[in-house]
């Protein structure tokens, strides 16, 4: 067992030092994906399918190749045809590399509006774009299918004749021509429902949304004269990019070096390749480095959004509020290729409650939209919307307080998850009690057309492999290099953990992010894992450093290493504590006692802590326009141990606002032919600073014994409950039950008007 004994008092963890990479970010010096230039660099642009579903009959690139300023043109013919090959990836657990390759450049069929068909490298992006438009592609149009229920219906257009089922324990034959199926169960639902005093069954639909990172996708690739490839890119996982490229291009992994630049947002959407293989092959053919930028329209049209869904759920409860049975049926869009978030989506639907009888059915459904990618707790937001609004309905019917109801049914440490195993340490009950005791919960709502809503949310955590290197400099400062790209401040949270472990100050530690050639393998910065798992690698490397330094002290004092006491950055002779070195002093003596010291740790931690949260929102609805104003928002979340509380607050606030956008405005609009109509940020409407109030983040700490300081991941669960909380507040304000997302003013007005008639 790996349980750590968490120190009572922590010196650095829990404080708020300034991040060392911050200075470059406020001065514009930080290098993001498009800020990188190489001499002689060409610019690449992609020709994309204007059709949602079609067979490619022919491609004529001759006019593009002849255009002045063009150096190379590629189509799928320039890439190896690889066999179906399933690997671990950042998203639903596994992806078929043949699908990934075909998604990067279409081989025989195009599956969505925007699917890449060819690419051009030229002297500048304008020339590349003009030339790309000269490529002639003959298509045989096929009928598209644009939502899960249509895709699952009889006689639906079929996307793939064969596909591997998505990432779950399931029979290998697919359930339907466009869908594979997942089932989970506990107890016996028919007995369970027989015991219920009240049963409700409801249906929900939610639309496709995008992660909306402000920086799009950018790659610069250089094919070296010796066949070694270097990539500079904005990514959540440099090793994932490398490994996927190696498979798609049939190169050895060691031939590819991926150097992660700063990343301007990812949220799960930047964990795999898109234009990377195109840039590499363009570079190979032209003999020059090639930069490729996906603009905003391309990013919306052709990079993985998160699933639209259809959900049907049934809950059975006794009059005292005990949940006795639950049935959950969820169909989640996979997009153009199989492997969407159905598994985590259905697994988290009910996981935060103890329900003895559960039946869950999930479908991973192919539709003519871009292949979906993870978006911060993938799959969980729609399922939470369904379940938490039904619970709100049950509370009202049974006249039970919403917090008391959840307390009665709350999953606690040791209770069985629907996946079967017992829940590790979790502070769900503490969170619910914090809600009850908070001024927001106790305050008067005020005004007409105002309402208050509560929702309770859960998300898993992850360990997975991480590496960290620590190198001690002779002046006592320390270099820390990890394999985890820094999306939002993990350099400082890792440096803080190193400082805590070594007994020095964070300002004495210089943290950096390594490339694939200079640091050990690390899984992507996803799944709320970095501060937790890479933190453990840092901690372990620090223990190694301390042990090595203790040996040096022992050498100097001519004592056994066991007699060296390490106490918060000092090394003492147990037998004579007058003999003492500070970390700095001992660092200065390393060269004379055997040479410099460094340590590396690769950790795959098992003691993962899960995420749990409750959101409370007050809103006002304008009954003439349907517009919702969020008046007050409080998010309660268990952080295990907040390493840097300001950053934890930031994760809570950021995820919450994304959830508010998902709840009220964001959706992909497709026309009947399957064209994406809102390809700009004007019409793909994300929350602005005027759309949201201050978000109060209340951080609770039930330490996770799987981490030396009690850390559990915090980044994802904030996006899970806002939609349900807002829907519940809307019912409180105006008596309408929303069962679709987003809850736009038009839809709210519709409900208000039909309610009065």
């Amino acid at each position: 067992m790996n349980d750590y004994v968490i120190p009572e008092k922590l010196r650095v963890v829990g404080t708020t030092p300034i991040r060392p990479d911050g200075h470059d970010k406020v001065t514009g010096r930080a290098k993001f994906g498009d800020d990188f230039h190489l001499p002689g660099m060409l610019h690449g642009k992609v020709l994309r399918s204007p059709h949602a579903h079609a067979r490619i009959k022919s491609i004529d690139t001759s006019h593009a190749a002849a255009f002045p300023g063009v150096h190379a043109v590629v189509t799928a013919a320039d890439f190896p045809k690889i066999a179906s090959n399933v690997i671990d990836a950042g998203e639903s657990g596994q992806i078929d590399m043949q699908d990934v390759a075909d998604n990067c450049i279409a081989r025989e069929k195009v599956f969505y509006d925007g699917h890449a068909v060819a690419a051009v490298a030229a002297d500048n992006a304008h020339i590349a774009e003009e030339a790309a438009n000269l490529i002639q592609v003959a298509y045989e149009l096929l009928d598209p299918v644009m939502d899960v229920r249509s895709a699952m219906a009889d006689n639906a257009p079929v996307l793939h004749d064969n596909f591997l089922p998505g990432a779950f324990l399931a029979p290998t034959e697919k359930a339907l021509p466009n869908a594979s199926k997942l089932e989970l169960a506990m107890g016996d639902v028919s007995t369970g429902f027989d015991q219920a005093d009240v049963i409700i069954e409801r249906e929900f639909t939610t639309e496709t949304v995008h992660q909306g990172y402000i920086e799009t996708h950018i790659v610069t690739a250089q094919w070296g004269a010796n066949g070694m490839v270097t990539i500079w890119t904005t990514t959540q996982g440099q090793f994932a990019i490398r490994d996927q490229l190696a498979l798609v291009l049939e190169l050895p992994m060691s031939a590819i070096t991926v150097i992660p630049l700063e990343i301007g947002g990812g949220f799960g959407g930047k964990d795999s390749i898109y234009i990377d293989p195109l840039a590499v092959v363009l570079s190979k053919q032209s003999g020059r480095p090639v930069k490729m930028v996906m603009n905003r329209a391309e990013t919306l049209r052709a990079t993985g959004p998160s699933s639209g869904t259809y959900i049907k759920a049934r809950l059975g409860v006794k009059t005292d509020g005990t949940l006795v049975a639950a049935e959950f049926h969820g169909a989640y869009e996979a997009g153009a290729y199989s492997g969407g978030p159905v598994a985590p989506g259905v697994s988290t639907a009910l996981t935060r409650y103890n329900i003895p009888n559960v039946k869950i059915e999930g479908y991973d459904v192919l539709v003519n939209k871009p292949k979906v990618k993870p978006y911060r707790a993938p799959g969980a937001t729609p399922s939470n919307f369904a379940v938490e609004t039904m619970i709100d309905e049950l509370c009202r019917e049974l006249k039970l307080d919403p917090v008391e109801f959840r307390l009665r049914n709350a999953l606690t440490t040791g209770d069985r998850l629907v996946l079967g195993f017992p829940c590790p340490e979790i502070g769900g009950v503490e969170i619910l009690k914090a809600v009850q005791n908070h001024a927001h919960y106790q305050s008067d709502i005020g005004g007409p057309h105002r309402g208050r809503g509560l929702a309770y949310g859960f998300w898993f955590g992850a360990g997975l492999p991480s590496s960290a290197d620590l190198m001690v400099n002779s002046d006592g400062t320390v270099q820390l290099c990890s394999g985890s790209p820094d999306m939002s401040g993990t350099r400082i949270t890792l440096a803080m953990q190193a400082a805590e472990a070594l007994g020095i100050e964070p300002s004495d530690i210089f943290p950096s992010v390594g490339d694939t050639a200079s640091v050990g393998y690390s899984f992507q910065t996803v799944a709320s894992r970095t501060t937790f798992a890479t933190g453990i690698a840092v901690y372990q490397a620090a223990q190694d450093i301390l042990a090595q330094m203790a040996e040096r002290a022992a050498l100097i004092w001519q004592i056994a290493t066991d007699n060296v006491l390490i106490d918060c950055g000092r090394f003492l002779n147990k037998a004579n504590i007058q003999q003492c070195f500070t970390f700095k002093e001992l660092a200065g003596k390393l060269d004379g006692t055997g040479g410099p010291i460094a340590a590396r740790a690769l950790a795959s931690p098992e003691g993962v802590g899960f995420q749990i949260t409750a959101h409370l929102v007050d809103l006002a609805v304008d009954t003439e326009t349907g517009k919702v104003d969020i008046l007050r928002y409080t998010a309660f979340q268990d952080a295990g141990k907040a390493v840097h509380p300001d950053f934890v607050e930031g994760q809570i606030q950021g995820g919450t606002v994304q959830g508010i956008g998902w709840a009220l405005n964001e959706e992909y609009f497709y026309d009947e032919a399957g064209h994406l109509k809102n390809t700009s940020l004007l019409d793909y409407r994300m929350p602005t600073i005027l759309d949201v109030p201050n978000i109060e983040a209340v951080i609770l700490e039930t330490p996770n014994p799987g981490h030396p300081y009690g850390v559990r991941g915090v980044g994802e669960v904030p996006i899970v409950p806002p939609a349900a909380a807002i829907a519940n507040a809307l019912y409180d304000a105006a008596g309408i039950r929303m069962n679709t997302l987003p809850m736009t003013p038009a839809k709210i007005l519709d409900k208000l008007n039909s309610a009065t008639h």
Partner: protein
Amino acid sequence: MREMTGGTEKVAVNGANVREVIQALESLYPNLTGLLIKNDQLGKGIAVAVDGRIVRRGLYEPLQSDSEIHFIPALGAG
């Protein structure tokens, strides 16, 4: 040894590690090995929880008597 299959049933089998448990289950569930083991490794997309912790050594993970094992979908995130 005790084990839950897909969260629906509880079965008791003998085995010193996860591979031996799967082999022991084969007689009860003939399709299980093909489902769980691919290329002599635990199939991608499948994770194993032993006594509540998702373990990393796959088929080689040693077990105690009274270990509780669950095969679960490998869940990903963003």
